């Protein structure tokens, strides 16, 4: 049975969408018409430009509402998500001691050019983020956070040295898709060094999805809204399933 949906304004399937963008045009009737036609060219109808703001340097900001003819059948979607259950810290610790009977070693870093540790710190640091302690706080984890701008080679050397169960890579800066280049480089090096199948490779960051992670050759990816609990549970359950 298919379930076809359209955007909802105030009536089912009215298709109402809010748009906001800048154009290199002047903030006048001519510019407004340019914006309106552009939105029509996007396939929308019933275009209503509700606001023009002069941005200077020949740019104008437009806010608009329009109606889209597009719809989606939600029964036909294929979504890749991390499917392991999410447990809190105490439950994960119990789970690990029951199923693995040892400590899990995790090495994490912001690799290559990325200097933004906020993501990796939220997952790994003792303090954690938003009422979820980081991996350092878990009894069942030996968490090594190497910090920012760590070359891929150093991260892999560390992981080898401590016989890591999992590598956590954070990529926050995504301008010009630098995160893809960095993540690809790490996985290629890991393959060349024969480490790829010896441990879990996990990446995270605001623009990372599980699907992207799989595509890049990682085991899992965690995007915005992920916490240490998601990552810890995933590692614990996956290792246990692998019988490691």
């Amino acid at each position: 049975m298919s379930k076809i949906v359209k955007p909802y304004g105030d009536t089912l399937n009215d298709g109402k969408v809010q748009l906001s963008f800048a154009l290199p045009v002047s903030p006048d009737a001519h510019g407004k018409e340019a914006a309106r036609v552009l939105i029509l060219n996007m396939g929308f109808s019933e275009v209503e430009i509700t606001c023009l703001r002069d941005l200077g340097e020949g740019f104008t900001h437009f806010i608009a509402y329009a109606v889209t003819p597009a719809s989606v059948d939600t029964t036909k979607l294929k979504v890749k998500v991390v499917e392991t259950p999410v447990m809190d810290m105490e439950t994960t610790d119990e789970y690990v001691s029951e199923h693995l009977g040892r400590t899990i070693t995790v090495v994490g870093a912001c690799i290559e050019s990325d200097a933004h540790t906020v993501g990796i710190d939220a997952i790994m640091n003792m303090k954690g983020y938003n009422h979820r302690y980081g991996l350092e706080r878990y009894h069942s984890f030996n968490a090594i956070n190497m910090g920012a701008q760590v070359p891929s080679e150093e991260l892999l050397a560390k992981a080898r040295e401590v016989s890591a169960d999992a590598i956590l890579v954070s990529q926050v800066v995504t301008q010009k898709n630098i995160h893809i280049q960095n993540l690809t480089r790490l996985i290629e090096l890991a393959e060349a060094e024969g480490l790829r199948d010896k441990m879990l490779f996990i990446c995270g960051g605001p623009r990372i999805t599980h699907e992207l992670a799989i595509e890049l050759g990682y085991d899992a990816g965690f995007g915005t809204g992920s916490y240490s609990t998601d990552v810890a549970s995933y590692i614990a359950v996956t290792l246990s399933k692998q019988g490691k």
Partner: protein
Amino acid sequence: MLKLDLDQNLVQRARAAAGRITGGFQWLFDGYSSYTIERTVLRLMGIDGAQEGGRPLPNVIIDHLSSQKAMRKGAAVWVANAMLARNFSAQEVAEAVASGELDLTALPMAPADKIYTCLNDLAAKMLDHIKAQAQKRSTMFDRYGARRTPAIYVIVATGNIYEDVTQAKAAAHSGADIIAVIRSTAQSLLDYVPYGATTVGFGGTYATQENFRIMRKALDEVSEELGRYISLTNYASGLCMPEIAAMGAMERLDLMLNDAMYGILFRDINPKRTLLDQYFARMINAYAGIEIQTGEDNYLTTSDAIEKAYTVTASQLLNESFALLSGVKPAKMGLGHAYEINPEIENSFSYELAHAMLTRELFPEAPVKYMPPTKFASGNIFKTHLMDAMFNFVGQLTGQGVQLLGMMTEAIHTPHLVDRSLAIENAQYIFTAVKDLAENLELRPDSFINRRANSVLQEATEFLERVADEGLFQAMALGEFAEIRRPENGGKGLDGVFERDQDYYNPFMDRIKEELGL
């Protein structure tokens, strides 16, 4: 009038402890130098440019001298000696060294007085240029009027200096007072400053002297057009702190992010290297009339903003104390703090107000720099915009010096043109709406806000007193700051620190110290 009732005894104790901590480094400041300090001297002597392949000439000279184990006299003496021997300019000497044609240590040494005269003439020439730049800034402010309070500070970060110019000019048109060109993300750990105009960067644009020049010129044009002086800022931080300060002084940047301890804690740069570099970098900033800004917001993004609020206060007092040692006047100290408390917490606004008032009142003359919510900014741009409005409210109500505007897309990407414009509109609306509100308000002495500010001050005082007893390096090694352990001999850049010889000479430091009365 909205004002705290701060325990003045605590204020004095905290300042005294900070003074004890920073006063313990004279051995370092007087006895050591670093490669970037020497490269700064070379740049100030007029050496610029890079070899094919990109190695900057100041680095080429330092490589040359360090391979000859000749660094301990300082680079200036060797270059001046070659200038006299060959009748070359400093730049010609550098080019001859780069081509492999000249060995600086192979020439006979000229008499010391000749070398000093040569260097002092060069120093006078460059320092006159820097003074003229400072004078030009004052003239512009006199002509167009002083900066508003809080000043509207926005970032541009396209990676391409020419695209940055378009965005900066648009921001100025929308109402920005200060433009920050965010640096490419890996630059703080480069032990050289890239050369020339750059069009590729990640999360920002490389700080180069040419990029400084391009942006300053564009902002001068837009200042004239708008009848408002638009200030420019960048980052004198990382492994090239004093070099970037010098480049900023030459090209008339108006502010510089220049924290005494940030590199140690958040970039794992060696503690000795950082303290040494900041000492000279801040001296240059002081001489050039550049307002320094500090990075206390980082303590709050890496730890809990309520629990660790005192670390901000402690760091501000240390930054103030180190800055005074370099001759920076309080009116040029943009000490930092931030609006980073979890918005789900009840009365989070009261905490923020208490913290903001504490900063404002501890440093009454300083143009304190207030940083926006970032940690709890999310993909929900509408909520982030609302948080930014609350942040702007505190900024105007408490009279912060510089308001670093939050962007609704903070958690998503470097700001788009529209994001920046909406942020400025947000700030202008709130600033206008609550302009004189503070004059009408008073705090009860037993109010939560008053008690909270005093309790943060108390914690900061006790912390500083403990660090003063322990010593700063020891405290950092134990992880007392930001819960990060930084041993004295760990971190990046220690190999670029060296002990000076008896006959070491840095013509710029001596002269600047004299003129600043240090």
